[in-house]
């Protein structure tokens, strides 16, 4: 399977049900899309992530009812610095889609725990290791690191061997 260049034109990707649904709902919520290595990524405007998620979950034709994962990538020193990555799965249609939200230096985004309770631990982990705040999370505390830990270890400006 030789690599083919990624498709980033919205017009060419309209055939995908998740993207078509979102464009029909509110085209301003979609900042862009990418189809690369058989995986669809949709960039979402940060204030609409919760609505987009519940929209995709409740879709009649292709319900993305399963939240696989929430994680984060730190692109320091580029701006916007953080990318929150949501992986969704449709159990009935056996499709995946990746949603991304870009965040700047004081990262904050709405929590999706009200859409999928599964997001609870995932978001706590991102908060713990990247310091991204999730508004509306019921219990946003450190998950893996000790409660009194200083700094966010998975950020790129945090040294691999830690602060000594």
């Amino acid at each position, binding site marked *: *399977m*030789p*690599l083919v260049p*990624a498709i980033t034109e919205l017009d060419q990707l309209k055939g995908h049900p998740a993207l078509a649904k979102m464009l029909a709902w509110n085209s301003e919520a979609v900042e862009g899309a990418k189809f*690369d*290595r058989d*995986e669809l*990524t949709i960039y979402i405007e940060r204030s609409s992530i919760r609505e987009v998620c519940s929209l995709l979950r409740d879709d009649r034709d292709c319900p993305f*009812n*399963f*939240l*696989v*994962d929430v*994680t984060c*990538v*730190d692109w320091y020193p580029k701006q916007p610095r953080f990318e929150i*990555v949501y*992986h969704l799965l449709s*159990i009935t249609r*056996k499709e*995946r889609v*990746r949603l991304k939200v870009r965040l700047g230096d004081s990262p904050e985004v709405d929590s999706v*725990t*009200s859409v*999928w*309770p*599964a997001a*609870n*631990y*995932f978001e706590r*982990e991102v908060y713990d*290791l990247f310091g991204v705040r999730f508004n509306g999370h*019921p*219990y946003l505390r*450190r*998950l*893996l*690191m*000790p409660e009194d830990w200083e700094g966010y*270890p*998975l950020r790129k400006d*945090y040294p*691999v061997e830690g602060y000594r």
Partner: protein
Amino acid sequence: MAHLSSMPTLEPGQDRTMILNMGPHHPSTHGVLRLILEIDGETIVRIMPDIGYLHTGIEKTCEAKFYQQVVPLTDRIDYLCPLTNNLCYVLAVEKLLGLEIPPKAQWMRVMLNELTRINSHLVWLGTHALDIGAMSVFLYCFREREDILRLFEMVSGQRMMTSYFRIGGLALEPPLGFFEPVRQFANRFPAKVDEYENLLTGNPIWGMRTKGVARITAEDAVALGASGPTLRGSGVDFDLRRDMPYSGYENFSFKVPVSQDGDVFARYICRVREMRESIAIVQQALDGMPEGRIKADAPKVVLPDREKMKTEMEALIYHFKIITEGFAVPEGEVYQAVESPRGEMGYYVVSDGTAKPYRVHMRAACLANLQLLPAMCEGRLLADVVAAIGSIDIVLGEIDR
């Protein structure tokens, strides 16, 4: 589902209840899981898992390693199924590189993965039964597990931390005469599963401790992100091996056991049946094992054979370059999921075009499955917590990473 989305802090509630700390060194928590329980007599009012005691920062470590150096790290994540971790990671990087893997390597990977699944389920069954009070099952299970570990040692030189898969194929040719003991094991094993089932399935004490205990509905299981046998035990018929095949699973025929009850017994029966299906896949892999190379034709990524290095200049150069400066992976990102013994294991690998991964994230099936514990246990008896923990089959190494 309001109760699911809110995880309470545990401060002493009414006068009747007390806070009880369970773990992190309680033997039945399978590692270092700590549970904070609020109990009213013997009844669980609230339960809060506290994790992180085994956090080693593997994701951060990966960012400082070359792509090929990450493979041994993945063994340590879920130490009961190292080969599944190896597979998931190498598949993700191969997808980033666009590599074509020869059929023999794919079939070997499938065969070893199913042996790993049996190995993991045997540890689960033994310890789960031990927790509930059936001591002898543990000894039976570890007898067969020993056989599988010996097979792993034959093929990779290591019993547990195998690191046998490489980006682009396998580390070594399987040793001469390797398939014969695998076939003997595959022939012998179904009768052993009958033995375990004779001890447990019809056993009235086992039934009383597991049937109707720690029930979870299909809706709750999906909403909480459960996967694997934990999800299938609640009646959701979904298995990545069948529904989104990878590494040549589409060439194998097997059934996906599903149970509707959603209790501890349902999850038990799903896993026991899975062992039978896994051994059937191993049989099919043995019967149809293709001939040919075990490494992809990509000299810049795959280490050359030792023999070639002594006779060919290019092989020596590539070997030196791969070892000293790694290989560059084209920019991009990939999420690769495989069906691990515990559910959907996923590797999200981001490349910035250099020889070291920009970000490696592991989607841990156990982390999501652990979120089911409060929904399973609240309102039930303290003794059922132990049964529930066993039934979701957690590995703390994977949860904490």
